[in-house]
C-alpha cells in the first residue's frame, strides 16, 4: 500500500512524513518522526499516556490517524519546554514529586497544559475531572493535583 505524504507543524517546526493510512498518530510520532515522549499505555484512548495537542485541543494520539495531522499544528511533550527552560507545569511536577515511574507524566503534563490554557484558575475538582482521562498508577494523584494547582497559580502570577 502506498504511503501517504503528510505535512504538519510539530512542536513549532514545519515537518513532513510518510505514513501508512492505518497508522495512528502515536505510531507516527514514535516510529516515523522519532518522538518517543508520547507513550502507548493502552492504544484505546483510556490511559492518556499518548496525549498531544492538535491545534490546541487535547487528543489521545492513539485514537487519531497520522494522515489526519495534515495541515495541523501538533504539540507533544517534547514541545512543552522552551529550549532549556522548563514550563512551569514541568517545574512544579518536579518540585512536588508528582511522578514516580514517570511513564504517565508526559501525558499528564500535556493534558495539564490543555487544562490551564482553557481554564487558568481551576478548582481542585475541575482539575481532577479534567485529568480523569490520564491514568497514573504510582502516585494516587495527590501530588499530581498539588503540582497542577501550584503551576496554575504560578502561571497566573500569584505564587513563586
Amino acid at each position: 500500500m502506498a504511503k501517504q505524504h503528510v505535512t504538519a507543524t510539530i512542536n513549532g517546526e514545519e515537518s513532513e512524513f510518510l505514513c501508512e493510512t492505518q497508522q495512528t498518530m502515536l505510531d507516527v510520532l514514535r516510529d516515523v518522526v522519532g518522538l518517543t515522549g508520547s507513550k502507548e499505555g493502552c492504544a484505546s484512548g483510556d490511559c492518556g499516556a499518548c496525549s498531544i495537542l492538535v491545534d490546541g485541543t487535547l487528543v489521545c494520539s492513539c485514537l487519531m490517524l497520522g494522515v489526519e495531522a495534515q495541515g495541523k499544528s501538533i504539540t507533544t511533550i517534547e514541545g512543552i519546554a522552551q529550549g532549556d527552560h522548563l514550563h512551569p507545569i514541568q517545574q512544579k511536577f518536579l518540585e512536588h514529586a508528582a511522578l514516580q515511574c514517570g511513564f504517565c507524566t508526559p501525558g499528564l503534563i500535556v493534558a495539564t497544559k490543555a487544562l490551564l490554557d482553557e481554564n487558568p484558575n481551576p478548582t481542585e475538582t475541575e482539575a481532577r475531572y479534567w485529568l480523569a482521562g490520564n491514568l497514573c498508577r504510582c502516585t494516587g494523584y495527590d501530588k499530581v493535583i498539588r503540582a497542577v494547582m501550584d503551576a496554575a497559580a504560578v502561571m497566573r502570577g500569584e505564587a513563586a
Partner: protein
Amino acid sequence: MNYIDSSLKVVGTRPIRPDGVDKVTGRAVFSADTRASGMLWGKIKRSPHAHARIVSIDTSKAEALPGVRAVLTSKDFPVIASEEAFVGEGPMNFRDLSDNVMARNKVLYEGHALAAVAATSQSIADRALELIEVVYEVLPHVIDVEDAMAENAPVLHADMFTAGVNPKPSKASNIAKVVTFKKGDIDAGFAEAEVIVEGSYTTQPVHQAYIEPHACLATYNPDGQITIHASSQGHFMIRAYTAKLLGIDMANIRVNPAEIGGGFGGKTLIYLEPVAVALSRKAGKSVKMQMTREEVFRGSGPTSGATVTVKLGAKKDGTIVAAQQVLKFQAGAYAGSPIGPGCMCGFAMYDLPNVDVVGYDVVSNRPKVAAYRAPGAPISSFAVECAVDDLAVKLGMDPLTLREKNAAKNGTKTHYGPTHTNIGFEQVLAAVKTHPHWSAPLPAGQGRGLAVGFWFNIGGESSATVHINEDGSVMAATGSPDIGGSRASIGMMVAEVLGVPATRVRTIVADTASIGYTFVTGGSRVTFATGMAATQAAEKVVDELKRRAAQTWDIPVDAVEWKDGMAYPAGSNAGAFEPLDLAALALKQAKTGGPINAEVSVNAQGAGAGFGAHICDVEVDKETGRVEIKRYTAIQDVGKAIHPSYVEGQIQGGAAQGIGWALSEEYIYNAKGLMENPGFLDYRCPVASDVPMIEAVLVEVPNPRHPFGARGVGEVPIVPPMAAISNAIRGAIGLRMPDLPMSPPKVRAAIDAAG
C-alpha cells in the same frame, strides 16, 4: 557506621530527583522507546481458549508470507525439568515458567502464548499470526477457586499432587499446596471466648496495571553474545531467567535496564525476553516486542483472587483469645500464589495466644499470578480487619481501642514463629489516636473506617559503586532498577556520607555487565538493602579520601578528619593545613594512588517490618450504590524517610491501588472462561476524580539495622485500604460488604436486600 542519631544535612530533605527532568520532558528512555538498525517486530500468538490440548501447529503459511523472518513455537525452546528455585520474588519452577512463556502441550488460559513471529513491520507480523494454524482439542475449564477445588473439577496438571498433606495424595488435583500455621490451642481459645465473630470474604484478582506494557529489544549476535534492552524490576532477573529458559550462559547475556513504567511486583518475572532472543537468533536481526494492553491483561499476572473465612473469639474486655483463618488463593495456571505470606500477614498485627491458619494454593484456568505489592497480605488482612471491626461492634468497643488492646509489640511472638523486634506498631496506633481525622466530627450519612496492615519487608543482595570523578563530582551506580525515585534516595545517602550536596552526586542504574549482582526491586528492599550497599561504598571512599589527604600532608591517617565534604587535620597537633575538598583530592588522585572509588556488595539482613493504619470516611449513594471516599489518611512507620516526598508518594499510591481493589477493579469472565474486560475502560483503575487527597503521615521509629534507620515503605500501604473502606461503608449504611470489589451494583443489591 550508623547515622540514626546524627544531625543530617541531606537525608530527610526533598531535593529534585536526578532523573526528573528526563521524565517531565519526554526524554526518559523506557522499554519500548529504543530501536536497532534493521530491527524486526516480534509478536505472539495466544490461545483463544481457556483450556485446550494443542493437537498441532502449522506455521508454513506464516513462514511463506513476505516480510516474515522467523516463526517459532515451544519446539524452539529446550525442555526444562521441574526445578524449584528461589531466584525472583518467590519460589519459581522453571519448567512452569518456560511453559508459561511458550505453551508446550496444553494452553492453560485464554491468552497463553503458543507461537511467535518476527517480521519487518508490525502489520506483517499481525497478518502472520493469523496465518498460523492451530488445531485445539478444547478441554473443560475452571475459573473460580472453590470450583477448582471441587472433587470433579477439570484437572490442569496431571502431576499435581497436593504438597503439605500427610500422607501424600494418590490423586492429582488443582490444589498445589496446603500450608498451616498453628500457635497455642485453638479449641481451648474458643472455649475461653465470651464473644465470637465469624465472616466469609471474597476478593477478586487485580492486575498491577502498570501503565507501561511489557516490551523489550533483543539482539543475538552470530558469536552468541546477546544484548537485551528491557524494563523490569530486575535486569539480573531477566538475565537469569532468559539464560535458564534458553540454556545459555549468563556471561553471554547483557541486559540494559530501561526506565520502568511501573511494576508493583508484576515485572518480577518474564514473558517476552526469551522469545525475542530466540526470534533474533532465528532471524539474524534485532527483534523488538511490545505487548498491547489487552495482552497485558490476558497474558500477564494479576495477583490472586481468594475466598477467606475468619473466626475470632474474645473476652468481654476485648482480649482476643482465639483466631482462625482459612484462605484459598487462586494461583492462576501454575502453582505459586502468595499463600505463604497470606497466611502469615493476616494476624501479624496482633498478640494472639491461640491461632490456627490454613491456606490452599489452587490452580485454575487464569493467567499465572505475579507478585503484587505485599503479595498475599492485602487479601488476608481484608478479611481479618473486617472481622476485627465486627468484633468491636459486637463488644461495643471503639475499633481503635480494640486494636490497641491486642496490638503486637516488641517481643510478641507471631503465629508463624518469629518474634517481633524493633517494630513501631504502637507508635502508629498512637498517631491514629492523636490525628485530627480520627476525632473529626463525621457529617451525617458518612461512615468512618479504620484498618491496619503489616508487611515483613526484605533485604537481600545488592551492589553499589561510588566513584569520585576527576573534578571531584560523584558518580553512584547500583544494580537496582529505579521504580519510584530510588536514584534520589541512594544519591542522598551517598551525599550525606560524603558531606556534599545531593546535586553533586549523579546516580545511575548500571547494566548487568557493569555492576555486581543485585536482586530485584521488590519487597520494599531497595532503599534498605541497596541503600546499605551504597552507604558502605561511600564510607569506603571517605576512608580512602582521608588516606589521600594524609598522604598529601604527610601525617598519619588517623590525624585526618572528614567533615562537610572536606579533609581537615584533626586538631592542632596534626598540623596547620588548609582543608582539602573533593575537587582538590581528585586533582591529585594520580599522584596519591590512582582513581578513587569503591564497590560494595551486601546481602542485607534485618529489614525492619512495617506497620500502617488507614482512616477512611465514605459516603454511600443509596440510589446508585456508589461509594465516595470523602477523606483518607494513611499513617505508617517508615523507619526514616530518606526523601520524604517519595515516601509519601509510595503511601499515597499504595492507598489508591487499594481503593481500586476495594471499589472497582475485577476480572470478568464469561461462561467460556474468556476475560471480557481486558482494557482500561472496563477494568476500572482509579482515576483522579475517584479519589480525594490522601494524607500520608510518616511515623519514624528507626530500624537499627539500616545506617539511617530506613524501613521498606512500598508494600504496607496497599494492605489496609480494602478493610478500611468496608468498615467505613458499614459505618455509613450499617451493612458489611464482604465481597470485593464493593462496586455500585453490589452495594445497591446489599441495600435492597436489607430492605
